[in-house]
């Protein structure tokens, strides 16, 4: 059996896909916050998350992309949909969708955006264009080594956090314990 050499995956039509995926991400983001029906919002969010997984792939972060799909799209969003189905939302769909302070909120967010713009314009040279991409082939192994080496403690804390979240969710959602 000949050993197969695995060169790093070659990106194809990077520019096109970047604009396509980021466009999808942003459009779905807009849909998330504007749709009346939470299910439509959730659907938009799912598409956004998948597009974002594509962006991660373009950033040579396949493991994060995989985790994004399996955890976010396959796990968290199912949870969301599950709750939406359980909670009868018909009434809330007939009500006013935006709260009274929506102008203020919108302006504040825009101001924050302006701040970002200023920061990016000022600090543009901090972000060089061409960086040698990290070797994609052992990305997963490296992340694994870091998770269980350098970030061991944080990893354990995260598992503890999840445990707390499980207990918290059960306590909150259960009728009678």
């Amino acid at each position, binding site marked *: 059996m000949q050993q197969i050499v695995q060169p790093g995956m070659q990106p194809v039509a990077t520019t096109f896909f970047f604009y396509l995926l980021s466009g999808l991400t942003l459009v779905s983001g807009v849909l998330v916050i504007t749709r009346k029906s939470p299910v439509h919002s959730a659907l938009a969010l799912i598409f956004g998350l998948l597009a974002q997984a594509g962006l991660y792939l373009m950033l040579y972060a396949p493991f994060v992309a995989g985790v994004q799909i399996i955890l976010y799209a396959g796990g968290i969003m199912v949870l969301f949909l599950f709750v939406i189905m*359980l*909670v*009868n939302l018909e009434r809330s769909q007939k009500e006013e969708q935006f709260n009274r302070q929506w102008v203020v909120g919108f302006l504040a967010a825009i101001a924050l955006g302006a701040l970002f713009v200023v920061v990016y314009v000022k600090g543009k040279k901090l972000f060089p264009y061409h960086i040698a991409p990290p070797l994609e082939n052992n990305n997963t192994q490296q992340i694994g080594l870091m998770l269980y080496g350098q970030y061991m403690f944080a990893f354990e804390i995260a598992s503890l956090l999840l445990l707390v979240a499980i207990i918290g969710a059960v306590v909150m959602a259960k*009728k009678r314990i």
Partner: protein
Amino acid sequence: MVDPKTPDPKTAEATKYLSHLELGEPDKTFLDSNELVINMGPQHPATHGVLRVILKLDGEQVLGTECVIGYLHRGVEKIAENRTYTMFNPYVDRMDYVAAVSNGLGYCEAVEKLLNIEAPPRAKYIRVILTELNRLASHQLWLGTHALDIGAMTPLFYTFRDREEILKIFEKYCGARLTTHAFRIGGCQYETYEGFERDVIKFLDFVPPKIDEYEELLTTNRIWLERTKNVGVISRADAIALGVTGPVLRASGVKWDLRKAQPYAAYSDFDFEIPIGTNGDTYDRYTVRMEEMRQSLRIIRQAVEKIPEGPIMAKVPKVIKPPVGEIYHSIEAPKGELGYFIVSDGSTQPYRVRVRPPSFVNLQALDIMVRGALVADVIAVIGTLDIVLGEVDR
């Protein structure tokens, strides 16, 4: 009984009776799902006809059921009042159409009792053979559909294959397969055909391995056990109180079989066991029926071996005019006690016929059996009650 809180005295009494089932407080919101009321049927693949069960669900859990019946009501009892005794005989076949022979037997014997005549012994033996064959056919159909409800497709085809042999014998005997109209008041119309005994014996040798085959697929299957053990439990006391009869009653541990208790036809001549269960759950009802199939085979074999020669029809007047009076006669149909209450006003037509159908009475037990169980159990329990809607609605 969708809302147990209604202060209707009848309901209150029923609730008191069912209080040991610990019905939870109905909750308020959709989340706690007291609003989830599901119409199971009348068009539903698993309600064995046009039964409509209104289920009140908390998620998957059943809070209460209400059976809505009557979709197959044809006024059989009312028709009887406008027909002569002889003319009404075929109608009874249409009640429990999978056990038509038993229906006919019950009716004929009731009228015979009213007329105070008795069928000759050979007729009685033929009746026993055909009725027991029909019991077997009915149980086979029950097993197939019950297993199909629980998700096992294959037994259905096996049981239909074997039921076909029984129907062939019926067809050869009287020309009809399903609604046979096999018996007449006073005996049987047809003498057994040439080779009847041979066919029956052949069938008796053919079917026991097939029954083993069904059991092989189901009896020790883990999933089958989990689906049927402790599902739809009805206690001995509840079963008696609700008037449940047949295998459902016997599975709860009551040794009550009219063939032994009040022998009719020629049943006192035969040696057979009455299988009973202990827990009254779906699995016990399954085992009881499986054993009943074997016992039926035993009865048939004895009957075929001992069948006497002689006439098959008693002396019955041309125009049947029973004396004024009333009669209740019941037999052990495959599904339970099938009783006919006939009031005669001395004319050629019955004044009133009332049928006590086993399915109708057994169906009452559905609510008590499925409270607190899951949706899937409702299906299993409807299957295990072995109801035929033609008989429930009449």
